[in-house]
C-alpha cells in the first residue's frame, strides 16, 4: 500500500502540490483524474522520487521512500515501473535493446532467457517480433506507447505508474492502451497508479479514483461515486459526461 501524507511541492513562488493526502491500496487501479495544469504529472513523479517534494511523506508498505538514501531507493526501484507520457523509449537503442536493458543490467539471465522474456512482452502488447529490430523513431505513437508498456511489464513490478497513457493517441490506440492496462494488472497483479485527464480511461480501468484540483485531492472513492456535478466542478464545464 502506498500512503501519501502532506506532500507539498513549489516551483519558484508557485505552489503546485498543496499538501496531498492519499492512500493507494494494493492490487487496485487508482486513477488520479484532473484537467491540465493541476499538478498531476508533478504528483506522480513525486511518488517515484523523480521530483523531490518540499514536505510530506510517501510510504510504500510503511517504508518512507523520502528518508531512503539514493542507493537504497535505487534498489527499491526494481519493484516499480513508470510509463511516461511521451513513452521515453531510448532512441539510441532498438526496441529489443529497450526491452532487454533492465534484464541485461539487473538480472542474471542467459541470452535465450532474455530473448524469451522480450518476445513474450512484445507479444503481450500485441506487436510482432518484426518490431524488435526497429528504432523508436520508426514506430507510430501508439506502437511506442505499447513498447513502453512492454518495457514496464518486463520488470515484473509491484507498482506500475502511468503518466497520461492515452494522451496524443487516437481512439483505437487509446482503447488498446486501456485494455493493456487491465490485462497487465491481471497478468502481474500489480498496483496501477494512473494520472490522466481522460474521463473515458478512468471509466474503463479505475477501481478507485482521486480527483486532483489546484494541487490537492478534492475527492476519493469509486468511479460510481463520482457525480456529474463533481466532474463539472473539476473541469469547469457542464454536461457531456456519461457515467
Amino acid at each position, binding site marked *: 500500500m502506498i500512503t501519501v501524507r502532506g506532500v507539498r511541492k513549489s516551483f519558484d513562488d508557485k505552489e503546485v502540490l498543496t499538501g496531498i493526502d492519499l492512500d493507494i491500496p494494493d492490487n487496485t487501479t487508482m486513477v488520479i483524474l484532473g484537467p491540465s495544469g493541476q499538478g498531476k504529472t508533478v504528483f506522480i513523479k513525486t511518488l517515484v522520487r523523480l521530483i523531490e517534494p518540499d514536505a510530506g511523506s510517501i510510504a510504500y508498505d510503511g517504508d518512507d521512500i523520502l528518508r531512503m538514501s539514493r542507493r537504497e531507493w*535505487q534498489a527499491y*526501484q*526494481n519493484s516499480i515501473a513508470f510509463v511516461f507520457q511521451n513513452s521515453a523509449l531510448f532512441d539510441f537503442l532498438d526496441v529489443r535493446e529497450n526491452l532487454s536493458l533492465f534484464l541485461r543490467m539487473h538480472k542474471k539471465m542467459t541470452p535465450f532467457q532474455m530473448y524469451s522474456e522480450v518476445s513474450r512482452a512484445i507479444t503481450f502488447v500485441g506487436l510482432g517480433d518484426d518490431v524488435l529490430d526497429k528504432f523508436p523513431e520508426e514506430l507510430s505513437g501508439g506502437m511506442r506507447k505499447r513498447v513502453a508498456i512492454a518495457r514496464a511489464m518486463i*520488470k515484473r513490478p509491484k507498482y506500475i505508474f502511468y503518466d497520461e497513457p492515452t494522451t496524443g493517441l487516437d481512439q483505437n490506440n487509446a482503447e488498446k492502451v486501456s485494455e493493456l492496462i487491465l490485462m497487465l494488472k491481471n497478468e502481474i497483479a500489480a498496483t496501477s497508479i494512473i494520472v490522466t485527464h481522460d474521463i473515458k480511461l478512468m471509466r474503463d480501468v479505475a477501481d478507485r479514483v482521486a480527483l486532483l484540483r489546484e494541487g490537492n485531492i478534492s475527492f476519493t472513492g469509486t468511479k460510481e461515486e463520482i457525480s456529474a456535478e463533481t466532474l463539472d466542478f473539476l473541469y469547469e464545464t457542464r454536461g457531456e459526461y456519461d457515467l
Partner: protein
Amino acid sequence: MARKPSEHFFEQLGERSISFFTTVYEIATLFMQTVRALPSLWFYRRQFLEQLYAFSVKTLPIAAVIAIFIGLGATVQSTYQSSELLTRAVLVNVIFKTTILELCPIVLSLVLAGKLGASLAAEIGSMKISEQVEALETMSLDPIGFLVVPRVVAGLLMLPVITIFANFLAIFSSFFVSAVATEWISPAEFGSGLEMDFKVFEMYFGNLIKPAVYGFLIALMGSYFGLKTSGGAKGVGAASTNAVVVSAVFIVIFDYYLGKLLL
C-alpha cells in the same frame, strides 16, 4: 516610481553573479558525482565502449586533416620568418616543440570541443527533454553512471590517443614540406632538429597530460549542459552552444595554467 539605472545595473550584476557561482557549484558537484560513480564503469562497459568509438574512430578523419595542415602551416610560417640568426635545425626544433606542446593539443581540442562537446550536450539534452534521463532512473540505472562516466572517461583516455596520432601527422607533414617538397632542409638536419634539447617530459606533457585534461573538460561540460537542458529544441540548441563556448574558455585557461605550472 521609475528606478534609477544604477539600481537596474546592480540588480543585473547580482543576478549574473549568483547564476555564475551556481553554475560553478553545479559543475563541481557533477565532477564529484562523476568521481564517486567511477566504480560503475565496469557495469556500464557497453556504453563506455560506444563512447570510446565515438571519441576515437569518428574523430580521426577531422583530426588528421587538422594535424596535417597544422604541420604544413607552422613550417611555412616559420621558414618565412627564418633569419641568419637561427640555424635551420634550430628552427625545426622550434616548429617541433611548438607543434607538440601547443598547436596540436589546443587546436585539436578546440575543434573537438565543437564537434564532440556540442554533440554530447545535444544528445544528453534531447534525452533530458524527452524524459529518457528520468526513464533511466526508473529502471534503477544511475544517469551519472550511464551517461556521464563513460563519456568523461572516454574523453580522458581518447583525446591523448588522437593527439599522439595528430602530432605524428603534423611532424610528418612538416618534414614533407620542408625536406621533401621544397628541400629547404636536408632530412638529416631535420632529424637533428628534432633531437635537439629533447625532453621526455615535454612529450608526456604535449601528448598525454594536456589532451587528457582537455578531453575531460569537453566531456564534463557537454554532459553538464546536456543534463541542464530544458525547454524543447531551443533548449537543446542553447545547451550545445553553451557546452562549446564554456569548454573552449576552460581549455584556453587551463592551457595557460598547465604550461605555467608544469613546464
